[in-house]
């Protein structure tokens, strides 16, 4: 397979009639991939692979991200007929698929406590180790852990993935107004948590 595809991989899917320009938005490229040139989808991957890998890394750790990235592409490729072509940027849709892959990954974990998603534990520990000297970072990580998962999801999509609330709504398959209200609640809750006197037991844990 690798030998067969190496020229395409090296040069990209450049064939007559194939949309290639960076000016071409994601929607038309995905539409083209559905019209007999499935390799057009590789351009979508090239555009967003670093961002999606970053998302997977932040939510599941670097090792898991490396393993899961290919699965995200296969799932997205298989689901591209459901892509809404009115969305010019495929990123929110791809984040949604990556999130589903993450959820399936977390379900296979030994810790099945869904009320406290295990997905955040390892990355958070790594983050606190990396920023050990920053007490504010520790307090923030602690507060993030305590946020309800739906609110945390919106907050992190906006803060880390640079999505707008409306784009986060696409990722999470929720109405834009719901995304905005969850974001507002998340910010309010974080602000209140961080304003409280630091709980040394929690923060230093």
């Amino acid at each position, binding site marked *: 397979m690798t030998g067969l595809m190496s020229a395409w991989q090296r040069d990209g899917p450049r064939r007559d009639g194939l949309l290639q320009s960076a000016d071409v938005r994601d929607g038309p490229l995905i539409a083209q991939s559905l019209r007999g040139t499935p390799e057009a989808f590789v351009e979508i991957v090239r555009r967003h692979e670093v961002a999606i890998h970053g998302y997977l890394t932040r939510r599941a750790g670097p090792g898991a991200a490396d393993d899961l990235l290919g699965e995200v*592409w296969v799932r997205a490729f298989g689901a591209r007929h459901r892509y809404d072509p009115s969305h010019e940027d495929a990123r929110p849709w791809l984040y949604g698929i990556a999130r589903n892959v993450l959820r399936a990954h977390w379900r296979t974990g030994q810790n099945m406590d869904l009320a406290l998603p295990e997905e955040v534990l390892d990355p958070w520990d790594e983050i606190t180790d990396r920023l050990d000297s920053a007490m504010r970072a520790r307090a923030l990580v602690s507060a993030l852990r305590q946020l309800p998962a739906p609110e945390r999801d919106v907050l992190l999509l906006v803060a880390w993935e640079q999505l707008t609330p409306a784009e986060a709504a696409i990722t999470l398959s929720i109405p834009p107004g719901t995304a905005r209200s969850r974001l507002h609640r998340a910010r309010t809750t974080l602000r209140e948590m961080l304003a409280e006197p630091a709980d040394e037991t929690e923060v230093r844990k």
Partner: protein
Amino acid sequence: MNLHSEDSEVPDVLSAIGQVNPPASHVLENARDVLWSAIAEEMLSNAEDRLRPAEFEADQPERAARQRRANNPQQAQRRRNAGPGA
């Protein structure tokens, strides 16, 4: 870390703890390899589908004749009158 302001979209600390190293190029390539397998599978499937209509069209004249006979009530009646051995 100003969470009061809606304008300061990404508070410094929150942004800092979200920083990760960029992926190694081989990681991205491996993931694309997985995608190419799926693409190749679909391309093969599409090629098979393109062959199928040709076979169907080759069968069209006989299929059309059968349809005409079935739709012609006089012919159908004559066949029934002639009996099964006709």
